[in-house]
């Protein structure tokens, strides 16, 4: 019984804080509203018995939201929301589309005869996940690894305006890179 109560709280909390993300003025509060929504989602996943993935969602999302807060404050015109100005275009159109999508999905959820679960969940789902990722789903593991590596390289290339020629000179033979602020090991 307590499980359904906790689920109800998480559901309402997740959707409410999700909506708050776009309702609140201050960008910092929008970021933490999104973080709250993720924390509720993480709890919901914990409720479903996936303890490892639930805690992983919480861990990953806290770090991601902190990085998002940095960019949020950097790029938004008035990050603290002290001078409220709305940066929205065709609000009603968006509202109509998303309401329509919700009704469509809800109808699907209610009408589709979902199959019954075959057996009971394994004792330790995380162990099953580990086995799968190292066994049958090895391709997923390799793909995720490559995608993350490609993302790191691409994001760095896109974000920085200085290349290695600016740092190490045209013949790339400068002994110490000339960065505005040197790193700890002089590299």
């Amino acid at each position, binding site marked *: 019984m307590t499980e359904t109560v906790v689920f109800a709280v998480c559901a309402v909390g997740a959707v409410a804080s999700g909506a708050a993300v776009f309702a609140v003025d201050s960008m910092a509060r929008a970021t933490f509203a999104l973080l709250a929504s993720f924390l509720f989602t993480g709890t919901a996943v914990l409720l479903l018995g996936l303890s490892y993935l639930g805690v992983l969602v919480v861990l990953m999302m806290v770090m991601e939201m902190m990085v998002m807060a940095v960019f949020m404050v*950097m790029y938004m015109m008035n990050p603290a929301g*002290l*001078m409220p100005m709305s940066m929205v275009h065709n609000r009603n159109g968006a509202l109509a589309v998303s309401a329509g999508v919700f009704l469509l999905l809800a109808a699907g959820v209610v009408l589709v005869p979902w199959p019954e679960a075959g057996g009971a969940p394994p004792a330790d789902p995380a162990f099953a996940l580990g086995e799968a990722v190292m066994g049958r789903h090895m391709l997923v593991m390799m793909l995720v690894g490559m995608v993350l590596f490609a993302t790191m390289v691409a994001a760095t290339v896109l974000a*920085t*305006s*200085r290349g290695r020629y600016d740092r190490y000179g045209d013949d790339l033979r400068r002994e110490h890179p000339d960065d*505005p*602020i*040197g790193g*700890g090991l002089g590299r």
Partner: protein
Amino acid sequence: MDVTGWLLRRAVPRAFVVTAVGGTGARLAVEAELRERGWYEAASPAEADMLVACGHPCAELSPVLDRVWDQMPGPRVRAAAAAPERAAGVLDRARAELLDTAAQRRDAEERDGAARGRAREEGGEDMPGGLPMADRGEDRDGLTLDRLHVSLGPALPAWPAGLSLSTVVQGDVVQEARVRLVGAREGGSSSFWEGKPARAASLDAAQNLLAVAGWPAAALEGRRLRDALLRGEDGPRTRERLRRWTLRVRRSRLLRWATAGLGEADGRAPAGLRGDVADRWSRWLDPDGGFPPYRADASRAALDLLPGLVIGQELAAVRLIVASLAPDTGAVGAYAPGGSA
């Protein structure tokens, strides 16, 4: 049973020390007094309950002191230590006034009344608290981001007396810097350190830098040794402790790693200021007292060098560079630093 009074009597006060130009003697006395009583020095007005102004605050410094006084929260007391010998008495009276809960409650009610009054009549303005929005400027990565005007004012812990460095900061990188002396003394430039043992002057500069470099233990030990030397206790025990302290600071790899390569002063600087921050503070630790940092021309050169060294650096590096230059504002007299890049 007056709980507030009971708690206050148990509390160890924290003093926020602000030094006027030429108040070095009073500052040293107050610092020695605070250390012996086991009291603490506050890092910000919010943490403090005792504002101690050392030396003779002139017309320019008073508004700064008033602003710090307004920022201090709860039970607060304001003390002025004009001369070194009156430091102990001033602190005792301040402590007594702090414990007088009736007076503190009255002061609190007055402030709440004034604050409510101000809040009523300035209810309608658009900018909350009258704070303007940050303007934007080019940053070193080609982006145009917010810039803040921050003045590292005279009321700052471990900061040269009366120095005001008004900077334009993006994130925490300083883009523009202008040096100004708040309340520079028109009279002759007589530094406190003339006639005092050169080792004590170097120790004072070193403890200041160690406090800024985040090593409070060595800073306190250095301060204790400085006070011993100033009082003339030059016995074998003090010299032994001084040797061990110097060895520990000199051999600290972390301190060297944190300060190496910062604030490189080129050849034109006077002998005592050449090299980077690490060179400067290791010069102070030499047993022959190294180059006495407190001479008028060295301090003037330090003030001229400051803006150039500080631009492009982060706030942590700025604090270390200022502490390593250690300008003696008392010796400089009425000097308007020209170098405002």
